């Protein structure tokens, strides 16, 4: 694999070029709450030591609300217009646990129906990952097949060498093309530069065996195990909305004015009590314990059954941000220990 | 307290003593009268009878001056001037077209947000306690009739001052001096001022009735807040005496003079020597000497 060296200054130059070309650049906001568009290149900051942003980067390919089509109607006619996903974008400094998520979601968005909105966005997106030096009690990337240094999902992967210097690896073709395009900013390097930095990264302390988790889930659908979680879960959709891999959405048709409207694709969450409410009034998941069971099963069983992937990158956002600190890591660890 | 002051022509001529007493009294009461610089005629004499636009434009010019000179309110002691000002203001507020024409005429922006204060209102807004505290002399037993005339209270919908038929506000001020306002019948009766030049006899008859009723109800003097009223009632008494040998002279005092007396100001400085009808017969009992308060 090609490895390059790039200074922070040159990264800023790169950013400047991209902004001038009209590419949208996204990176964590100064308060690390979410991904925001970078307006001035010299504000570019890469912080491998920061905790994952409160809200993940998934909106790059799967925005919180996304128009599908627009309509205009009068008494007898309806005029339709497709919505067009937006222009080129570069995601800067994604944690491996964010970068890997696109690949995981890609499976469901291209399973039977090909989701053009997701695909088009992802196609137009270049992911610049960054080796992560952060870990806390809620991180568990190493238990779901990833690591702080995994390059999965990144087109280019950065490793911080010093405050002012980064090693850059072109991971995918798209990444290679990109480096080529801006080759004057990338100096040739080799893996000897990044190796010590990567080796020094320890990764999170939490460890569980995801296979054991699935084994237990396979056999224990009817269970009291989730009742204590259900006791305190508030049923907000925070966990799903901040999650890099949660991809449920709701389609609504909205008349935004008297004669015009739109079809919107909006985030949805399985923790909402209305999520499974039938028109009849029946609700198969009628309490929070069942809803939480769904969440764990979807992530650690159903998705594997169907796509051979764990629907989780171990970023820990859902637990860190949970209003009542329901910690999915400790819950699945406990499950793993049950078998 | 600063307030704008528009004396008008009367107060520089026939009603000099009104002006004099006002300046004395208000300086005593700690009020700074800021005389409107470059003030001009209010139009009370002939404009309002001959040229409507002019009759509004004349006060309007003065109001604009007041605005430019940073005054929020002007005190207008002459009831005729006062009347012109409030009417002009009212008409401009009601009729934007007129206001526009006035502006063309005076070549200024016409301002109607200037407060206009008459003599009685001026005293009303002074703290009663202050007047009582500054009072040097209680004019006890001094029976006076408060005469309002027409210009202060009419048209009442415009002046919005007191009751046009039964005003009582001047009495309240008079009581502060210790003098006793009498209950009488002709406090808003016409004195005939508008006939002063053309039909003197009407003036004499009407003025005499006013003076007689005041006397019948026990008044020793009539208190006024208008130079027109004053000149008619004061000046005509000589002619009245010619027609009626029984006529007893009745001194006509300005409200400001009465207040001045109670504040212990000397008669000279209040202009009490400038009256046609001698004031001394009734006022002699109030010496000008200032008696220290207990």
């Amino acid at each position, binding site marked *: 694999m090609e490895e390059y060296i790039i200074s922070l200054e040159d990264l800023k130059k790169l950013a400047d070029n991209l902004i001038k070309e009209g590419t949208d650049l996204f990176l964590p906001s100064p308060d690390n709450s979410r991904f925001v568009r970078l307006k001035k290149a010299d504000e570019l900051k890469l912080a491998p030591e920061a905790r994952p942003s409160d809200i993940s980067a998934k909106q790059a390919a799967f925005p919180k609300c996304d128009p599908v089509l627009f309509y205009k*109607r*009068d*008494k007898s006619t309806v005029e339709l217009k497709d919505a067009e996903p937006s222009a080129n974008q570069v995601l800067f400094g994604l944690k491996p646990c964010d970068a890997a998520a696109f690949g995981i979601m890609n499976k469901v968005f291209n399973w039977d129906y090909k989701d053009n909105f997701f695909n088009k966005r992802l196609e137009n997106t270049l992911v610049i990952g960054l080796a992560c030096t952060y870990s806390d009690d809620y991180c568990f990337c190493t238990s779901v097949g990833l690591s702080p240094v995994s390059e999965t999902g990144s087109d280019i992967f950065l490793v911080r060498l010093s405050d002012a210097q980064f090693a850059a690896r072109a991971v995918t073709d798209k990444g290679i093309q990109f480096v080529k395009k801006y080759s004057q900013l990338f100096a040739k390097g080799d893996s000897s530069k990044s190796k010590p930095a990567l080796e020094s990264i320890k990764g999170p302390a939490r460890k569980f065996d995801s296979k054991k988790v699935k084994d237990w889930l396979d056999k224990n659908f009817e269970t009291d195990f989730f009742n204590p979680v259900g006791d305190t879960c508030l049923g907000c959709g925070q966990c799903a909305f901040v999650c890099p891999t949660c991809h449920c959405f709701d389609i609504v048709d909205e*008349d935004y*004015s*008297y004669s015009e409207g739109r079809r919107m694709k909006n985030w949805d969450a399985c923790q909402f009590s209305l999520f499974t409410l039938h028109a009849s*009034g029946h609700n198969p998941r009628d309490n929070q314990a069942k809803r939480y069971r769904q969440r764990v099963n979807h992530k650690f069983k159903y998705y594997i059954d169907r796509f051979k992937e764990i629907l989780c990158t171990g970023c820990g956002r859902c637990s860190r941000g949970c209003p009542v600190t329901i910690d999915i890591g400790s819950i699945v660890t406990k499950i793993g220990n049950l078998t | 307290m600063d307030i704008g002051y528009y004396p008008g022509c009367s107060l520089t001529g026939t009603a000099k003593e009104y002006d004099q007493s006002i300046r004395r009294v208000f300086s005593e009461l700690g009020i700074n009268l800021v005389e409107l610089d470059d003030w001009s005629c209010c139009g009370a004499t002939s404009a309002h009878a001959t040229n409507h636009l002019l009759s509004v434009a004349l006060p309007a010019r003065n109001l604009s001056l007041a605005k430019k000179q940073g005054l929020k309110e002007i005190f207008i002691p002459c009831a005729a001037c006062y009347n012109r000002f409030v009417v002009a203001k009212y008409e401009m507020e009601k009729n934007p077209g007129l206001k526009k024409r006035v502006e063309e005429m005076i070549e200024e922006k016409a301002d109607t947000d200037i407060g206009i204060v008459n003599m009685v209102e001026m005293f009303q807004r002074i703290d009663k306690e202050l007047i009582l505290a500054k009072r040097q002399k209680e004019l006890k037993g001094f029976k006076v009739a408060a005469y309002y005339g027409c210009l202060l209270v009419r048209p*009442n*919908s415009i002046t919005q001052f007191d*009751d*046009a*038929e*039964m005003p009582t506000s001047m009495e309240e001020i008079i009581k502060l001096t210790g003098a006793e306002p009498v*209950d009488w*019948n002709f406090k808003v*009766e016409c004195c005939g001022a508008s006939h002063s030049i053309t039909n003197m006899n009407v003036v004499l008859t009407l003025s005499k009735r006013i003076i007689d*009723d005041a006397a*019948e109800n026990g008044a020793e003097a009539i208190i006024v807040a208008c130079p027109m009223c004053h000149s008619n009632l004061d000046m005509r008494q000589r002619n009245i005496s010619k027609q009626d040998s029984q006529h007893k002279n009745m001194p006509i005092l300005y409200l400001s003079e009465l207040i001045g007396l109670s504040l212990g100001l000397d008669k000279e400085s209040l202009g009490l020597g400038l009256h046609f009808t001698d004031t001394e017969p009734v006022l002699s009992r109030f010496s000008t000497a200032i008696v220290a308060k207990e």
Partner: protein
Amino acid sequence: MMRIGVFVCHCGENIGKTVDCPTVAKEAIKLPNVVYSIDYKYMCSDPGQNMIKQAIAEHKLNAVVVASCSPHMHEKTFRKACAQAGLNPYMCEIANVREHCSWVHDNVEEATKKAVDLIRMTVERIKFNFPLSEIKVPITKKALVIGGGISGIQAALDIAGAGFKVILVEKEPSIGGHMSQLSETFPTLDCSQCILTPRMVEAYQHPNIKLYTYSEVDNVDGFIGNFKVTIRKKARSVKENLCTGCGLCVQKCPIKKAPSEFDEGLANRPAIYVPFPQAVPNIPVIDRTVCTFFKTGKCQMCKKVCGRDAIDFEQKDELITEDVGAIIVATGYKLYKIDKKSKDAAVKGYGEYGYGKYKDVIDGLQFERIASASGPTAGEILRPSDKKQPKKVVFIQCVGSRDPSKGFEYCSKICCMYTAKHAMLYKHKVHDGEAYVFYMDIRAGGKGYDEFVRRAIEEDHVKYIRGRVSRVYEKKGKYIVKGEDTISGVPVEIEADMVVLATAIVAQPEAAKLAQTLGIPYDKYGFYAEVHPKLRPVESSSGGIFLAGACQSPRDIPESVAMASAAASKALVLFGNEMLEREPIVAKVNENTCVGCFYCKKVCAYNAIELKEIKDKKGNLVKVVASVNTGLCQGCGTCNATCPSKSIELIGFNDEQIFYQIKAL
């Protein structure tokens, strides 16, 4: 699918002149779900209504929008037409393009555009209408009459005579009202008390009438057919069931000099008193503000002399509740007292007339007492100051009436007539006396009225002077009345011995308070408002509350009596039904989503929200939700706006109707 018909009315020229109706109809057909639209000269006419009916049948319309005058005008008409065509009447809505559009705008283009907008909004709204049917409520067939003057007595007698129970409430110790104070009545000059007293007694003795004197209405709850009234029976200090009306207490009371209300202060009465000899009931009352016992704790003379031990110093106000189905308000008027400045800034008093200052300047009611055979002078015309016969009397009309600058703008209506009567009575009693009347106009419309005035002028030689009086003042024992004779154009001065002021008729001072208790509108003067000035003159806008007499505006006796009978007949129309049909505009709770916070209950002025327990199949309590008592709900919708989750909605004005109306803006 909604199939809506739009009917655009020209209202002759009224709408058609400023709204291009054919264009409006063409625009309307373009609206989604509108399958038929047409414009027509008079939609409310028979052919117009038939067009609607036909269109409903031919085009299978299931909703109708009529663009016409205000719904207050013809909503009922058009709904009825729809009903006749088999469409539920509540599937018809009005777009008000007359009062709110054609009549208030000049520009045809703008008015037409607005009319189209209003129709579009109504079309969107009607998509969320659904068929409704009237609500039936039982009726309490008993009436409350407030006020025991001639109007109240008449109304009570009429209803009682028809066989229904009546509660008659009078705030004074006796019924009779102002009419009992009058001497003779115009234009017949028959004795007021002679014709009134029998009616008072009849009311007192009528088995269907329950009389509460010295009582007031404290509170009114409920609605048409079902009012709950709280009556405050003030402490009379005399036990009504024991008192025989012998009058000994009145004679013995040492306090003699309380001014008599009945005699308008021209005579005195004791602390314990019967307002007048013919009072009904003939039971005394203690005026606690002047009674020695209540002031000092000593005396009790009345108690000592009462053979029946009927005096009760301890008596307290008593609250009585009564259920009634209809209320007639007949609270009458007061005369404007010009000696005191009214709190109402518009009325500045008439101090220049010397009322209150000169004893011989009196008002109309005082003159009535002087002229009355039962009055303080036993009917002899003597002036109050020195009890001498006045030889010259000046009557001044319109004191406070028709005077926008100082008084009230309205005409007090009865003064022209009673002044003529006064002058006439004076001339009949003082043959050598002179009577002058200052007037503005003579308004003597009424049977025999103008003849009456002519008689005063021509036969009794009352001198009428057209003009106003500027001042009345005393000079050497005479009252100088200065005025102007506008016909000859000269100032007039009359040296009078007595002056009578025809002061304005004003609403009772507590009129506004009572109106708020009853929930009926009133005008800026405090007179109660009728729902329609011409066609519904005795009905207030609150169902089941009717108006009679001078509480609605100045009225003379025949009018008051006519109004009273009219109001009574309105009550009787109501009582003629077993059940009341009400518009089904009431709130409805979505019990699935109601969480039982009961904010709806807190804001409901009618106690219409009740608690309802929701139980599961096993009978376990699931939750407590709000539930609407449709009999009590009046359909204001305050609950709807207050409910955070919109779990209670007002039928007829539900959220969807309003939502889509806004959206169609």
